[in-house]
């Protein structure tokens, strides 16, 4: 069969990345702002103070703009699964289909019903029913995100499934194992808390603009108070979930973990690079390497971060590629051999099925489905597509920098909220114009951090689309590269237009302010 064109893989990846990145511009603000609205409205219902109603309605309008422009942008990703990634879509079977179907049903019934009450129900339903609707929208939006993140978590760490050679699909044998996979759970918690942090900074930043313009002082200070408390709690929890996510990456995706630290040679008492600049790629004694032009390290911290043990061995990229007998790290060459055997068995199975040799077909199927074969051979199936072990190394600089940008900004956000709360406590926030300017210019930063997190998750996972089972090159449909290029540019135009529309409408509405803000 004809080899797949590498430019087709690259353009398909670029198209998916473009769509996912644009989609993710809209989602996190929805996830976080929904809870901020719920807090604000709860204060209104509790205190009866109409100013809180005005505050809630203003932020609800902002929420509505973002929700309306972002809604359904994720459906394009599903179009791409079916068209550009048909091998992958078929191979994952109901592992992906079930969570996405649940997401669609939940999003429709929960969000669409209660969003209508939230926007249209002021003065038409009771205060308490309205408040319950707002809370349900917040929970519904976040639970919707759960399902797609469960599917993504499964791609990083496949669990709760077995591969059926008859249907050529992975079939779910344990729904709860898929849902409560530790990678999926931590990914979900880390992702939604990043949305909470982003929305909090957005609210603080926009409120700071009002204070800089000497407008709506009480509205702005009250908004900053709610957002800063929520933001501080969220950003602290974000650091906690980031730490636990990193431990699972170290355990389940050690190559990604090594790449995000630029660690080529594994070691015990491995230091964490707090800050570093990578040099150009070198080949020394046949092995890849990136020197650091400069770096600032925290001794033993990487071992502690990964295994909660300062003396623990953290495998480097070269250990994972070439193996390390001392620390029982299997080489990629060995995995390629095992993967080839799995693929040969699948081929033999196909031939037996086609020839109608029932006895041979049954015996191969029994071997194929045996636990021994699944755990020792089929789990390396994807390695059979590589003709040299170095192909399993992801883009190290992209992984390294996206990780460090995300972590640096994560800690910056904690400090940001602490300062905001201290200034509020001292009642000097509106006079601290330096902080108001910092807050306004902080608005893009959580977007950068959030996108960096996704780039780390997806680029760091390469060359895999499903870790160890399916490389990206095997997942892509045999389309013409030109058709993928055309849709890439169509999406670029469509999404850029949507983003411009969002920003223009948001700015117009923010300038109007809370007095006349309506839906």
């Amino acid at each position, binding site marked *: *069969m004809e*080899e*797949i064109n590498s430019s087709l893989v690259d353009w398909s990846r670029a198209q998916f990345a473009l769509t996912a990145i644009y989609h993710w511009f809209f989602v996190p603000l929805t996830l976080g702002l929904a809870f901020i609205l719920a807090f604000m409205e709860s204060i209104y219902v509790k205190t009866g103070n109409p100013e809180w109603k005005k505050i809630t309605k203003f932020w609800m*309008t902002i929420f*509505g*703009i973002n929700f*309306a*422009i972002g*809604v*359904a*942008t994720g*459906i*394009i990703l599903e*179009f*791409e699964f*079916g*068209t*550009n990634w*048909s*091998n992958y*879509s*078929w*191979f994952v079977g109901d592992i992906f289909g079930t969570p996405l179907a649940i997401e669609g049903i939940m999003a429709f019934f929960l969000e669409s019903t209660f969003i*209508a009450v939230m*926007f*249209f*129900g002021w003065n*038409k339903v009771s205060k308490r029913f309205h408040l319950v609707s707002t809370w349900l929208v917040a929970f519904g939006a976040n639970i919707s995100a759960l399902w797609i993140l469960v599917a993504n978590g499964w791609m990083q760490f496949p669990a709760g499934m077995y591969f059926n*050679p*008859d*249907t*050529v*699909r992975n079939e779910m044998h344990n729904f709860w194992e898929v849902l409560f996979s530790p990678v999926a759970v931590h990914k979900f918690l880390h992702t939604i808390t990043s949305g909470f942090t982003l929305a909090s900074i957005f609210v603080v930043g926009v409120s700071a603009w009002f204070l800089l313009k000497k407008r709506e002082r009480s509205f702005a200070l009250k908004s900053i108070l709610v957002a800063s408390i929520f933001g501080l709690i969220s950003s602290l929890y974000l650091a906690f979930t980031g730490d636990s996510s990193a431990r699972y990456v170290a355990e389940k995706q050690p190559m990604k973990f090594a790449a995000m630290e630029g660690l080529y040679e594994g070691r015990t008492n491995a230091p964490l690079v707090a800050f570093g600049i990578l040099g150009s790629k070198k080949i020394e004694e046949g092995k890849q390497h990136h020197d650091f032009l400069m770096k600032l390290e925290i001794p033993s911290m990487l071992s502690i971060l990964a295994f909660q043990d300062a003396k623990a061995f953290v495998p480097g990229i070269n250990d994972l590629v070439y193996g390390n007998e001392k620390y029982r790290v299997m080489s990629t060459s060995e995995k390629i051999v095992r993967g080839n055997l799995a*693929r040969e068995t*699948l*081929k033999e199975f*196909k031939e037996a099925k086609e020839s109608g040799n029932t006895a041979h077909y049954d015996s191969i199927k029994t071997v194929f489905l045996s636990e021994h074969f699944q755990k020792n051979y089929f789990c390396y199936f994807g390695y059979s*597509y590589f003709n040299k072990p170095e192909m399993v190394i992801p883009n190290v600089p992209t992984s390294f920098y996206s990780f460090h940008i995300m972590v640096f900004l994560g800690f910056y956000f904690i400090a940001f909220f602490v300062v905001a709360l201290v200034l509020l406590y001292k009642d000097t926030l509106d006079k601290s114009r330096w902080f108001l300017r910092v807050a306004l210019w902080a608005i893009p930063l959580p977007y950068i951090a959030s996108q960096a997190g996704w780039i780390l998750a997806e680029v760091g996972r390469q060359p895999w689309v499903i870790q160890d089972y399916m490389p990206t*090159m*095997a997942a892509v*449909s*045999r*389309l013409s590269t030109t*058709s993928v290029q*055309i*849709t890439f540019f*169509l999406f670029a135009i*469509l999404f850029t237009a*949507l983003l411009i*529309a969002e920003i223009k*409408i948001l700015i117009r*509405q923010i300038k109007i302010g809370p007095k006349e803000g*309506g*839906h």
Partner: protein
Amino acid sequence: MYLKFVYCKKKDGMVLNKKSWFHKVLHFYVDGFRSMTVGKTLWLIIFIKVFIMFAILKVFFFKGFLSERYDNDKDKSIHVLEELISR
């Protein structure tokens, strides 16, 4: 228009003017849409976006690779198996 659907119901000798649950919901939505300010622009954007996505992109560019070529799951699985083995 929807007000025409309001009906009278005779129960225990009393005549009640009562809107059905369905009509109350309909009224709720119609009123909500009528009183929208920013929302009208947003709905326009949503309709244009959904039209582009489903009437143009889905129809002309994203037909579904396997569905377009094969009628049944068996043929689809044979195609994918061949791809997995031979690629």
